[in-house]
């Protein structure tokens, strides 16, 4: 019985329609970017789609710009750190909100989620003024703080969803079997919401990595994040294939980083099994060893 896969709800016709729909949606999602990426293969000095002639020249030029590479490294570091802090803050806040019903939770929720309801130009400007006043304006700490505020809402929202969908009796069961709260949390709850935490971290990372608006206010001569560089380059120079190549190259590299880190920490397992199959949770594996 445990090995049976749930059949899902769609019959063969339903499945076909679903597949066609997914294909259409996928095309819709990537069409503009594909157009530009393909257009950057053009031999003309300006982006044209369909491209006239094909060349990789513009993509290769990307590596000639050392400031692009150092900005890339900076963006990567800031995004990873901000996302991790956001995930921790999000987890703690979500636990507080779900475990302990209290009117104060409204306020807490508002506090950590409302940043995404404001245009980032407002956030950037506010941070510049306030952080400079507090003494850490044009520093890494300031840039990082701005990013943490920017991306925490996403982590909170997703982790909260995972927690809410969870059956609370599971952890109670673990407690009644003798586990202390910390152990119950780590061994039972966390593995079950791992998808939400991972997705929250991932979204936080991407939003931070791609942010130009907040970073534009908090940048310093040494610390210019990559999207700001690209955004600036695109603003004051004509949209030439070199810059669009950089932009689409950035997309490819970002996603490659995600895929690489996915295999490093075995996201496969974090995603959980295919919904409906017996999940290969760590708990199962531990059980076998014990």
């Amino acid at each position, binding site marked *: 019985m445990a090995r049976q896969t749930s059949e899902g709800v769609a019959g063969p016709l339903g499945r076909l329609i679903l597949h066609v729909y997914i294909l259409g949606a996928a095309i819709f999602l990537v069409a503009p970017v594909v157009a530009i990426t393909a257009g950057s293969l053009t031999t003309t*000095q*300006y*982006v*044209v789609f369909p491209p006239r002639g094909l060349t990789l020249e513009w993509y290769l030029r990307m590596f000639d710009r050392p400031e692009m590479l*150092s900005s890339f*490294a*900076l963006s*990567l*570091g*800031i995004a*990873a*750190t901000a*996302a*991790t802090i956001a*995930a921790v803050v999000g987890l703690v806040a979500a636990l507080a909100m779900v475990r302990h019903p209290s009117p104060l939770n409204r306020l807490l929720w508002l506090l950590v989620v409302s940043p995404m309801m404001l245009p980032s130009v407002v956030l950037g*400007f506010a941070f*510049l*003024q306030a952080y*400079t*006043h507090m003494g850490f*304006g*044009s520093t*890494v700490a300031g840039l990082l703080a701005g990013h943490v505020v920017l991306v925490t809402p996403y982590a909170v929202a997703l982790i909260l969803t995972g927690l809410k969908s969870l059956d609370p009796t599971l952890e109670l069961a673990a407690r009644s079997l003798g586990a202390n709260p910390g152990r119950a949390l*780590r*061994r039972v709850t*966390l*593995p079950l919401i*791992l998808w939400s*935490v991972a997705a929250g*971290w991932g979204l936080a990372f991407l939003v931070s990595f791609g942010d130009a608006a907040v970073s*534009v*206010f908090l*940048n*310093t*001569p*040494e*610390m*210019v994040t990559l999207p*700001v*560089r690209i955004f*600036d*380059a*695109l*603003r*004051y*120079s*004509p*949209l*030439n294939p070199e810059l669009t190549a950089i932009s689409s190259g950035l997309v490819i590299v970002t996603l490659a980083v995600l895929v690489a*880190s996915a295999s*490093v*920490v*075995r996201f496969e397992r*974090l995603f959980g099994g295919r919904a409906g199959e017996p999940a290969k949770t*760590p708990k199962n594996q*531990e059980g076998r060893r014990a």
Partner: protein
Amino acid sequence: MNAFNDIGFKAAISAAALAAVLSVAHPPRAEAATPLVLACYPGAPETFFRAEIIPRFEKEYDAKVTYLTGNSPGTIAKLQAQKDDPQIDVACIDDGPLVQAKGMGLVQATDPAKLPNLKEIQEVSQFKDGIGVGWGLFRFGLAFNPDEFKQRNLPALESWNDLARADLKGHVVVNSISISYTPILLTMLARANGGDERHIDPGFAEMQKIRPNVFTFDTTADLTPYFQQGEAWVGVWTDSETYSYVQRTKFPLKFVFPKEGTTAIQTTASVVKGAKHAELAEKFLNYLIGREAQELMADKLGWMPVNKSAKLPSDMAAIIASPPGSGDNMVSLDWKYLGEQRPAWTERWNKEIETQ
């Protein structure tokens, strides 16, 4: 390895990555040379400064220049935030916002005696209050695609009012009111129709006629995508930007000054009030308006020089149909008045023009 360790593992990797990255991203600082912090435009101007101006200046004055990127409002926001403890020495600000920067007390005057190159630049770049100098000239006019015009046998552009011509329907690009070019366009339209900046109604009236021709009101200050995609045949732009673009991409564009006259905006540079390295900042201003820097700018960046003795690149004439005379014969605008009117004009534009 249980799931919780995975998070710890990720966190450790992130922390290590950040540490490694930060140690690389911080370049070692040079000792002994006087530092100078320059807040200036990003993109092509930044590349130009880093490649041409900064190395020469550093060598001649034993300086170490740091380049902080930002557009005019971003730089002003930073100056405002740092008012009590300025970190920037020289700020590049467009002349429109410069009026506000002066009003807010963020920039200071320089004794003309300290700027010997001042006598070589045209009058419109020297400010009477001694605060700041203009260094790049952008004259307004109409950029157009000559291939499209030839293909469709369209008559040549002569007047600002030609923007309202029926044969250009849907193929004109104008900047949105959030870009500083647009109040100037309004003024020029007013002047072409019997008014001026103090009587702006004819400008708005003409703009209503132009409205159906507008493909879009651009918010990025970059008209090139619209030309490139063939959507725009005519754009309200500046000579420097048109020339710079054509020089770089060889896209077919030409530029013409309408017969009713035109005006110019400038990029300016000022010494920040209370700057830590004010003396060196003044030397930088002087260098920037000197002949060497100005000729380099015209050649490498494609921007019109303000220095009268600077030689222009040879291919400029082919692209820009020059008006009789240089920057000195331009209509000069009362920037302070324009600045005062801008909020009201913006609101009126939002309600009457840039609406559906």
